[in-house]
């Protein structure tokens, strides 16, 4: 009859030490227990209402007990409402999870952070009846959804019906996707995730790059890329496919992708400077980084002038990765590739001034004596190669622009090419700046006449050079791996004699009218004869 069964009373009695409670006593107590419970709940609900809450807490029950002159229950204090869990196998049985706690753990644990202090923040909920769209107000979607459900209730509830005319229900604007587009999207994403059929995949990318009418799918694609990149950092082919998808999207002339760039960029940058890309080391993540670097450069080139802060932000991110010695070498590699892909100006501005110091750091990683791990050493050489090709491309472009400044360089570089043993003498030779400077200035004056022409060609030249760089890069890699040991030894020596002028010329590298000869000189100083392939052939022949 009472909802409190007799057995419960028995259990309670036992818990306070009465083991032989008569059955009829328990039966008589049960209704009273129920009544007292209800009474306390009623008072507790009153306390809850006056605390302006809609969830009953243990504090409310305590207050209710105090109101009835009963000692409150200790040990249940909690700022948050209790979290009930449903007991397995019972539809209406709940319990509060109460884990055993180790004192030691609690004592050893660091002090929890102090809770934030209460404060008051003011904002406009409405201005003359209109709600401004500010983050402090409920977002539009939230505004639109509740009225719908409420209206449903109102129809069921009866008395609200008459009010319906007065309530304005705004239905959220829905983004309608046609069935075909949905199918298309599913197909493409499936292909990319599966990643097996390369031929089909290529066609798919071609389709994304050329089809008109894909614009409604852009937000879904960007979201897809972002999701998959975060999910699939271990999956190398997937990442590559995703980057190719991004490229295809960028290439599609019918797509207006600017509004989604900010969502796209983080994933792209991730693929460039992430610590690990792909699950196994054997996978060629270098290729992915190179590809992504060119992608970044492409984006910056295409949207740089409409979004002024795009390139600065990208470069800042990359430079940050580059200059942080704690980052992995793979990250450095990505950053360097990214920076060099952005053009020689960026390299001169950001990479060259830090070059010397960086190489200094890199040196121990390169030599087999100090770095036992083969993998690590390989990575280091990769980075070295990237730096080399970056500065080399820079040199190449510069030389294209100022061909007349070359002869001075040739004199100083030649001894180095001939034999490493003469380096010291080369070093002493280097101390003749005045003579060279006048030489270069003369060259510069002469080149001023052609300056306008070179400026005009600059853009084409840039593209040409990036192509050339690619070629050179691969070439230099081949060279570099051959001369690995040799270079390692040389670097060790070179790092010792860091003379001031060299670092000065590197630091000044970003200036347009810098003494180019000395720049090249110092670069050659750092890299040795691997620099030579970057010198354009006709000039090369000139001084060889």
């Amino acid at each position, binding site marked *: 009859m009472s909802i409190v069964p007799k057995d419960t009373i028995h259990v309670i009695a036992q818990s306070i030490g009465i083991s032989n409670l008569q059955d009829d006593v328990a039966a008589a107590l049960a209704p*009273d227990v129920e009544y007292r419970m209800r009474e306390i709940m009623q008072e507790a609900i009153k306390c809850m209402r006056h605390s302006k809450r809609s969830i009953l807490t243990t504090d409310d029950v305590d207050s209710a007990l105090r109101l009835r002159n009963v000692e409150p229950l200790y040990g249940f204090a909690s700022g948050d409402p209790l979290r009930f869990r449903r007991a397995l196998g019972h539809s209406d049985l709940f319990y509060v999870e109460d884990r055993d706690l180790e004192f030691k753990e609690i004592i050893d644990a660091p002090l929890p952070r102090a809770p934030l202090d209460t404060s*008051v923040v003011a904002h406009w909920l409405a201005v003359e009846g209109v709600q401004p769209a500010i983050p402090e107000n409920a977002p539009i979607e939230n505004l639109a959804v509740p009225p719908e459900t409420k209206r449903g209730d109102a129809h069921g509830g009866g008395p609200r019906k008459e*009010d319906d005319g007065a309530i304005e229900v705004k239905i959220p604007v829905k983004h309608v996707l046609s069935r075909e587009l949905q199918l298309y999207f599913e197909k493409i994403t499936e292909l990319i995730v599966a990643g097996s059929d390369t031929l089909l995949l290529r066609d798919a990318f071609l389709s994304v790059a050329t089809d008109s009418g894909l614009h409604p799918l852009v937000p879904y694609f960007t979201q897809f890329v972002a999701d998959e990149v975060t999910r699939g950092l271990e999956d190398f082919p997937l990442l590559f496919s995703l980057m190719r998808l991004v490229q295809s999207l960028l290439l599609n002339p019918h797509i207006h992708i600017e509004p989604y760039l900010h969502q796209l960029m983080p994933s792209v940058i991730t693929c460039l400077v992430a610590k690990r890309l792909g699950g196994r080391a054997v996978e060629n993540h270098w290729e992915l980084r190179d590809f992504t670097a060119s992608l970044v450069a492409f984006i910056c080139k295409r949207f740089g002038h409409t979004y002024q802060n795009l390139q600065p932000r990208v470069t800042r991110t990359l430079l940050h990765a580059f200059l942080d010695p704690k980052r992995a070498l793979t990250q450095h590699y990505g950053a360097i590739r990214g920076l060099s892909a952005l053009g020689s100006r960026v390299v001169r501005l950001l990479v060259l001034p830090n070059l010397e110091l960086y190489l200094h750091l890199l040196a121990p990683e390169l030599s087999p004596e100090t770095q036992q791990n083969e993998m690590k050493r390989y990575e280091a050489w990769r980075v070295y190669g990237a730096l080399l090709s970056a500065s080399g491309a820079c040199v190449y472009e510069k030389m294209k622009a100022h061909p007349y400044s070359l002869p001075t360089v040739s004199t100083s570089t030649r001894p180095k090419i001939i034999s490493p043993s003469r380096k010291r003498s080369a070093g002493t030779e280097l101390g003749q700046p005045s003579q060279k400077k006048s030489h270069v200035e003369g060259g510069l004056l002469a080149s001023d006449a052609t300056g306008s022409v070179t400026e005009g060609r600059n853009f084409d030249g840039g593209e040409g050079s990036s192509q050339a760089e690619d070629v050179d890069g691969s070439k230099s890699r081949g060279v570099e791996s051959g001369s690995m040991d040799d270079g390692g030894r040389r670097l060790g020596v070179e790092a010792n004699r860091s003379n001031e002028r060299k670092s000065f010329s590197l630091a000044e590298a970003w200036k347009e009218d810098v003494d180019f000869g000395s720049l090249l000189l110092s670069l050659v100083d750092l890299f040795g004869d691997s620099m030579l392939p970057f010198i354009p052939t006709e000039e090369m022949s000139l001084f060889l």
Partner: protein
Amino acid sequence: MEEEKIEQAVLAYLKKKGYRQAELAFQDEQQTHRSLNSSSGGGADGGGGTTTPSMDPAVANSIFLYARADGTLYKEGYSKLRSWVHSSLDLYKNELLRILYPVFVHCFMDLVAKDFPQEARLFFQTFREDHDTLHLRDLHKLEGVLSPQHLQESELAVAFRENKINIRMCQYSFELLLQYLHSTDSMLMLGIVNEHINIQVFPGQPSPLPEEEEAITLTGKPQEALDSMNQKELRWGTLEDSLEDKLEKELAAEAEKAEAEGKETEADDMKKRTADGGKAGASSKKSKKDKTGTSATGKGAKSDSAAAINAPRVKPDLPMPSLAEETERQVLEDLRNRARLGSNALPSVSFYSFVNTHNSLNCASISADGALVAGGFSDSSLKVWDMAKIGAQITSGDQGTANGVVSNGVTEPKGVALENSKSSYTLLQGHAGPVYAANFSPDNDYLLSCSGDCTVRLWSLRLNANLVCYKGHNYPVWDVQYSPVGHYFASASHDRTARVWCMERLHPLRILAGHLSDVDCVQWHVNCNYIATGSSDKTVRLWDVQTGECMRIFTGHRGMVLSLAMSSDGRYMASGDEDGAILMWDLGSGRCVTPLLGHTGCVWTLAFSGEGSLLASGSADNTVRLWDVNASGKTSRTEEKSSGKRRLRLLKTLPTKSTPVYALKFSRRNLLLAAGAFSPLKTSVTTG
């Protein structure tokens, strides 16, 4: 029915109860009765029945009841009555349905009182569904009552036992009911109806309220007393010589002056015109038109502003405190610059969100000028934020004043998070229990707070210190409010009383007793002569401050009343309950003007705009709603009589970002200030 059987039953009863004397007397009587019977012979029966008091079968029935001592009779009786009511004529069904709930409750309580707990529980479970929609909360309270002892302890049961429920029904319905009860020998039901229900019979047709089921609310007073009470004369007008009054006079004087000037210029014009001659006849007409036009607009403006103030003026019964000249000037200035609101001129709402409250904010209060915000916490602390100062800091820290928007006379920092929250508030400590309400004095010099420790405390905002602790209530104090002129204040408590205090005395001036349950909220009338209280007994009462008498009882709520507000002309009152319903009352007639439905959670707070054209309500469902009150104000008088009740219009729903609205206040310039605790949702039940 055989007489001997009855006699035996009566004898058995008397024996059982141990009434020896009565038993003997009864036997004597029987003897004489028999002898009489035998003497008069069989003819007496047919003769006239004067000699044999022919036993009413119903009476016999009721006597049998005691003998049978069985719980099932109630169930039978009630289910019969129920099916009869449900199959009765549609026209009268509504009225008859009302009788079921009280009969149900009393049947149940009778069963409990006679110690049939099992039957009582069975009876309750069988029929509770009928009443779930209307009386869910009462049913919850009653459900646990299972022994005669509980009956005496449960406040609701006691209230039901001690008070008759008032039910109105028309002559014919009443006759139908009586006829049924007599004809079916349901003595039991008849007894309950007679004993516990006060049926008020009125002539004519049944009341035309098919859709409106009146809430049955206990008031503790018979209907006649209630009616006469609600007919007492009530002077609901605004206060004489109030600031609004002064403003009115000033405006009138200005208008007169302007008119006089206008006349002068006009006179000048006329002179000129006459000098010019009759050629300007047309133009003079035009100028006249202009003049009438301007004066009309002037008058229009005046009458507009006077619309709220066309209420009668009332002299205060209490000695009034005098106001400092400076504050008076300031208030007048504010009133002069008050933005006019209406259905097409909605107010701006500035929202104060409490962040990082960790579920401990119990109440919020905003000062009249919006510069100060107070929060009462469950850890007994009271914190006061000076928003004007914070705003100034932020604007001076920023380069420009772009963030500080000065609007309606209040400086608002707009959407700027506070960096140094450490020093941003004043902490007032003194209470020893959760702080349930706080209220600023009209001049912003003092703050009142009430708490679970049964006290009310007065704080000085200049000294940031506790001045007085008012002890008097015996149980937690739920609400406290300053009178509109300050100096006096009223408090409401769990001890079922409201008390009126003045700041200088430690003991209450008046104790307002009469509510059948907790007094949950209190609200002063604009003219300071009355106080309204809302209670858990689902009634709102209006009390005369001077005499302490109850002047009105408003019944209609279906849950505990949580918030009250008075319109500025003193004629209307709004009350909000825990179900989300808001009822609008006409104080003069004591009737509900209209219900305002729409909220889905507790209505924590209500506020009328300065000139009374809008009502704002804040609720636990994270919305602020704005209601058009003017429509009813103009039409209620005529329409109430002609076409019954009229619904007021919901103008606007302003959802907040998961912030229940704890406090609302219109500043003197009609900027709506709102406050609430930002509480992101958390699910409390997880499946394991």
